[in-house]
């Protein structure tokens, strides 16, 4: 174990030099680099924290906005629902009214159709009845029927009211007391006389009668006094059915 003072001194100097070199060229740059890196990392962390805070603030803001939008959406939905209900209600009312109107129209149309059908059937019935009556009356028509009809006519003359009598009297005067009488069968003298008497009494003046035969009347008489025409024969009665049917149709 030797001790050399020069080695001792040189080693002290050597170590101090080494320490200076290491301090200035190793520790300081390394520590500075580490410090810079730490600062950079801290800065990045700070920036990240700031961004995080901003993101959280934005998230909160968006959350609030979403809530607001939800509330607005809900309110709008409620309003829309109300409007829809009101519209639906109005449309339903309108539709019901239209349906009621249509139903009423349909009922009217149906009623009209029914009436028309009924009238048609009635007309057919009348027509068929007239045909049937015409066939029967053709078979039953004869001088006896005509005699009964004449009796019936004369009886009706007696039942006329004063107004009708006056008008007939006036018609006689206008026709210069000339009266034309058509019959389906030749009238016997007795019946002609009865007719002459009745008409003379009705016109209150002597009248001249002219007789002719018209087989189309089937049975009965047709008396023309000027513009007047008194009809009591089967043909005209049957025509009366047809006219009545035509009148009903016209209505």
């Amino acid at each position: 174990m030797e001790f050399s003072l020069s080695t001792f001194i040189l080693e002290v100097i050597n170590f101090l030099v080494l320490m200076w070199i290491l301090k200035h060229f190793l520790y300081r740059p390394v520590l500075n680099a580490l410090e810079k890196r730490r600062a950079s990392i801290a800065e990045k962390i700070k920036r990240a924290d700031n961004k995080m805070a901003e993101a959280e603030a934005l998230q909160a803001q968006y959350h609030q906005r979403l809530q607001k939008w939800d509330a607005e959406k809900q309110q709008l939905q409620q309003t829309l629902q109300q409007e829809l209900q009101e519209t639906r209600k109005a449309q339903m009312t309108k539709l019901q009214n239209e349906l009621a109107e249509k139903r009423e129209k349909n009922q009217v149309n149906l009623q009209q159709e029914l009436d028309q059908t009924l009238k048609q059937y009635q007309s057919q019935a009348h027509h068929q009845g007239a045909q049937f009556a015409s066939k029967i009356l053709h078979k039953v028509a004869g001088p006896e029927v005509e005699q009964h009809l004449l009796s019936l006519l004369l009886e009706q003359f007696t039942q006329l009211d004063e107004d009708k009598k006056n008008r007939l009297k006036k018609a006689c005067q206008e026709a210069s007391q000339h009266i034309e009488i058509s019959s389906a069968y030749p009238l016997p003298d007795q019946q002609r006389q009865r007719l002459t008497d009745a008409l003379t009494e009705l016109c209150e003046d002597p009248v001249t009668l002219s007789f002719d035969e018209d087989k189309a009347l089937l049975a009965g008489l047709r008396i023309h006094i000027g513009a007047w025409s008194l009809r009591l024969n089967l043909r005209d009665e049957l025509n009366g059915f047809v006219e009545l049917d035509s009148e009903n149709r016209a209505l």
Partner: protein
Amino acid sequence: MNHSEIAIESLFQIGPIAVTNTVVTTWAIILGLSAFIWLYMRHLAGAPGKLQTAVEAVVIAMEDAIAAVAPQQAKRLLPFIGSLWIFLVVSNLAGLIPGVHSPTRDFSATAALAILVFVSVHWFGIRISGLKSYLHHYLTPNPIMLPFHLVSEITRTVALAVRLFGNIMSLEMTALLILLVAGFLAPIPILLLHIVEALVQAYIFGMLALVYIASGIQAQALRQSQIEDKHTAKPME
């Protein structure tokens, strides 16, 4: 066994100063470390590579080790303690190179380092606590302790120097003896032990230096806190 294998040779003379192989090896180590640092600094980048990461890891590990003992003075103590560790590791391992001897097998070198530690304890103690306050700690807890403190200062410094010198010198000598007795490749296990021992001794030396410095600083801090406690306790009485 040649005497020159163990003896410290004086290689040349610069005036009155004899330059030994220990000093030359130390210069070589300083040059090697400087070259490494120069190369390292050339490749210093913001995104560290493998080498930079390794160097940074070493520096951080040393700083953390110092901070574990003296948390508030870690940055101030790092150049001295860190340099001790680096220099001792490299110096101790230099003996593994054939033809090269560890500078730390020379008592003059270990004594120089021990003296530097001795000076640095007072240097840091005075710089941090002030001269009066620092010197006062030799009188605590009682002025009777002053001789013991003084003896302790000397013995621990001597112990530092002798411990490192003894370990490294004995390792080299052992390896040399085994080589002489058993032949080539026989000292390999001892060389492996040399590696472990070199690292352990470097750590112990540096850690003891750190503990001595920290104790000098913290003794003052403890005393100051006790004084402050007394001052704050008085109004209560």
